[in-house]
């Protein structure tokens, strides 16, 4: 079985999804989904171990060798992402059963779990494959199930947000398809490893330039890079709480993975950063994203929207780290990916708890929550501290390395701007803290009790992980560094 870990990583959730239709009762389906997601998590740990021990793991699907068949090629970067995705998915699922009782009508609950597992399988398929077209197929599995999941939200604005996401996401996916087609036309292959060998000879043609441009724009649409981020805030805000917690922590990471994978492993770092002025472009767009989103967040009254805009800002940080195009910058980006997953997962789950007890996530309904739901508010505070980058949280570690990488590169103004962005984060998170602790509950909300354990356990698991990895940074740094270096050609 050990040799088949790469394919099992994707197959377990992929086949668990239709199997859910066979079990009818939502309670059983939840347990089954939890089992599937948990197994996927264990597989990802085993895979990471395998890569650390023996280097890149290659798996041929159907027994056909690449480039005639589809191959899975797992290196450190893939396995880190698989770990993050499956870990978040399992922890978030713990709270799902309770959460959806309030938010999703009973006849749709089984379908919810099916779509959830399909999203998970789609994301895992994207991060494990070594074939460009396979990426497109699993990208669509993930996207379609995400559109449906978001549309399950109670508010009718969820439908509109899902439609907008569908249109923008499909344009992005079609752009990626065009890029793949142009690459195939000039090289004759779809396998990523093979493409990296064959692209240098045709790299100077206009067609490859166009292919590259379309691929990058398509991926950036999925990544929600400013100014292509318009779908994200509404989609996160109006989706069911569990969906937001899951997608906010994972969806854009997968797009960022694709960006890194295509620019470094397929096109090669030197080509990617010289044909288009990607460095300048991404630094500017990343910083614009940080500021535009943070400022917008300050004016929002819906707490979910505040954190959704904050996600756009965090993506901006990750892109800045990426644009430095040195191993240090990439390492900071990967650390920030990890951090953001933990932090946003915890924050949106905690918001889910508030939604469950209070029935709304408007700022004015947060008044007095500090006393009524102490553990939940404490978790939100902890998550916000990580957002800002206060020491003892993972947020501090990743911001530190980010600033370090920019300074190493001589980009002093950028470092200053990053720190300014953190100040903005203090402003919008303070509004929530102030509402929770320094105000009396509004009329009608006095009966609010603390969230059920089903929420508190996963939320605090994520928060503790956040604090733990903020204090003991050896493991995360070691893995992130090894992944960054492997992309630059050193190590597995």
């Amino acid at each position, binding site marked *: 079985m050990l040799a088949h870990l790469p394919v099992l990583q994707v197959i377990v959730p992929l086949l668990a999804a239709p199997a859910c239709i066979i079990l009818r009762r939502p309670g059983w389906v939840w347990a089954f989904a939890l089992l599937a997601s948990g197994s996927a998590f264990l597989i990802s740990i085993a895979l990471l171990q395998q890569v650390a021990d023996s280097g890149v793991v290659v798996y041929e699907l159907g027994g056909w060798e690449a480039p005639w068949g589809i191959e899975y090629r797992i290196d450190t970067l893939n396995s880190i992402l698989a770990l993050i995705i499956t870990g978040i998915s399992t922890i978030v699922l713990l709270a799902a059963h309770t959460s959806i009782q309030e938010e999703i009508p009973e006849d749709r609950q089984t379908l919810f779990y099916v779509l959830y597992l399909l999203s998970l399988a789609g994301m895992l398929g994207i991060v494990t494959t070594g074939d460009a077209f396979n990426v497109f197929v699993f990208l669509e599995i993930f996207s379609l199930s995400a559109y449906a999941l978001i549309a399950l939200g109670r508010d009718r604005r969820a439908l509109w947000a899902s439609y907008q996401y569908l249109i923008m996401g499909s344009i992005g996916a079609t752009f990626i398809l065009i890029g793949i087609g142009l690459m195939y036309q000039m*090289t004759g292959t779809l396998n990523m490893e093979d493409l990296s060998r064959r692209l240098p000879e045709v790299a100077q043609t206009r067609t490859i330039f166009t292919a590259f441009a379309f691929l990058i724009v398509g991926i950036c649409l999925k990544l929600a890079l400013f100014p292509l981020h318009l779908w994200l805030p509404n989609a996160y805000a109006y989706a069911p709480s569990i969906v937001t917690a899951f997608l906010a922590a994972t969806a854009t990471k997968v797009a960022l993975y694709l960006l890194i994978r295509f620019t470094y492993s397929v096109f090669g770092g030197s080509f990617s950063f010289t044909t288009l002025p990607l460095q300048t472009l991404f630094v500017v767009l990343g910083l614009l994203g940080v500021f535009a989103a943070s400022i917008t967040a300050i004016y929002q009254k819906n707490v979910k929207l505040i954190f959704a805009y904050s996600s756009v800002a965090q993506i901006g940080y990750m892109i800045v780290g990426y644009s430095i195009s040195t191993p240090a910058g990439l390492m900071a980006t990967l650390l920030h990916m990890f951090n953001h997953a933990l932090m946003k997962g915890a924050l949106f789950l905690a918001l889910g708890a508030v939604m469950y007890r209070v029935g709304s996530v408007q700022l004015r309904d947060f008044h007095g929550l500090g006393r009524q739901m102490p553990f939940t508010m404490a978790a939100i505070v902890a998550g916000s501290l990580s957002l800002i980058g206060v020491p003892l949280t993972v947020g501090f570690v990743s911001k530190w390395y980010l600033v370090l990488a920019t300074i190493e590169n001589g980009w002093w103004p950028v470092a200053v701007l990053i720190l300014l962005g953190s100040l903005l984060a203090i402003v919008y998170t303070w509004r929530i803290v102030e509402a929770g602790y320094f105000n009396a509950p509004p009329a009608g909300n006095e009966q609010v009790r603390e969230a059920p354990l089903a929420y508190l356990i996963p939320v605090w698991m994520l928060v503790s992980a956040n604090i733990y990895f903020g204090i003991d940074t050896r493991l995360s740094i070691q893995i992130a560094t090894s992944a960054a270096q492997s992309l630059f050609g050193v190590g597995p």
Partner: protein
Amino acid sequence: MLSGIYGLLSASFFVTLDAVDVAFTEAAVGAGIATLLMLVTVTMTGRYEHSARHKPIGALAVVLVTGGLLLYGILDMPYFGSIDAPAHLHVAPRYINGSMQEIGVINIVTSVLASYRGFDTLGEVVVIFTAGVGVLALLSAVRRPEEDVEIDSVNVSMHEKYLILRVVTKILIPFILLFALYVQFHGDYGPGGGFQAGVIFAAAIILYSMLFGMSTARRVISQPIIQLLSAIGVLVYGSVGVVSLLNGGNFLDYNLLSDDPVAGQHLGILLVELGIGCTVTSVMVIIFFNFAGRTEDHMRNERKSA
């Protein structure tokens, strides 16, 4: 209407470009299913759009930039139809030669689809399944028995109006189903295979339900069974892969399904196409039933409030 014509035109274009399997699928899907769904949606949403109040300069600018970039990229492309293009030299020759030797199937597209790149096709089946589940999650509604009685009375009046259509359809449907079965199993030897067969099968069911009323169709084809079928199709496909795993090979390696590798390939492709056909049929039917059901509800509510 226009989208139906567009689909048919694309299909014929594909035929002239020697892409017969694709033409078949595009005709069935693009000209058939897509048109159908558009018509059902438009019934509910209205046929006319409001004219835009402002000039879309921004959109025009974006389109011109994108188009310009594409045109720029075309300049270095290998000529259309040239045999030395890189696309034809690297991976394709093995598919063309190996199709008979390694897999024993003369339709090269089927051998690539179901065997060489079988995992992509599993992904494709899952995409259809996802669409079905998504539509179910969005549009399904619980039927109440008194609604069915209402619909039956509409049916009786329809019977007089569309008598000829009904009789002709009743004769045609068995032939359509037979053709679907033919396409399903003939995919190895000519254009065809699971997808096309699934769509044709679904078309027969949809034709029946269009002329005999949704409630009759729902009595013939029960909703839970169809949903179960869609899941089973995907699971059949996956199990073929799992059996290969258990037999000691990689996922979806058909060589291990039988003592003779080529026979194993045949068996694998047969089972996999069956899974595809199963899921495609059930999902198309699910999508149509839910679209039509929702539109019916909407029309009925409008009549009540009018």
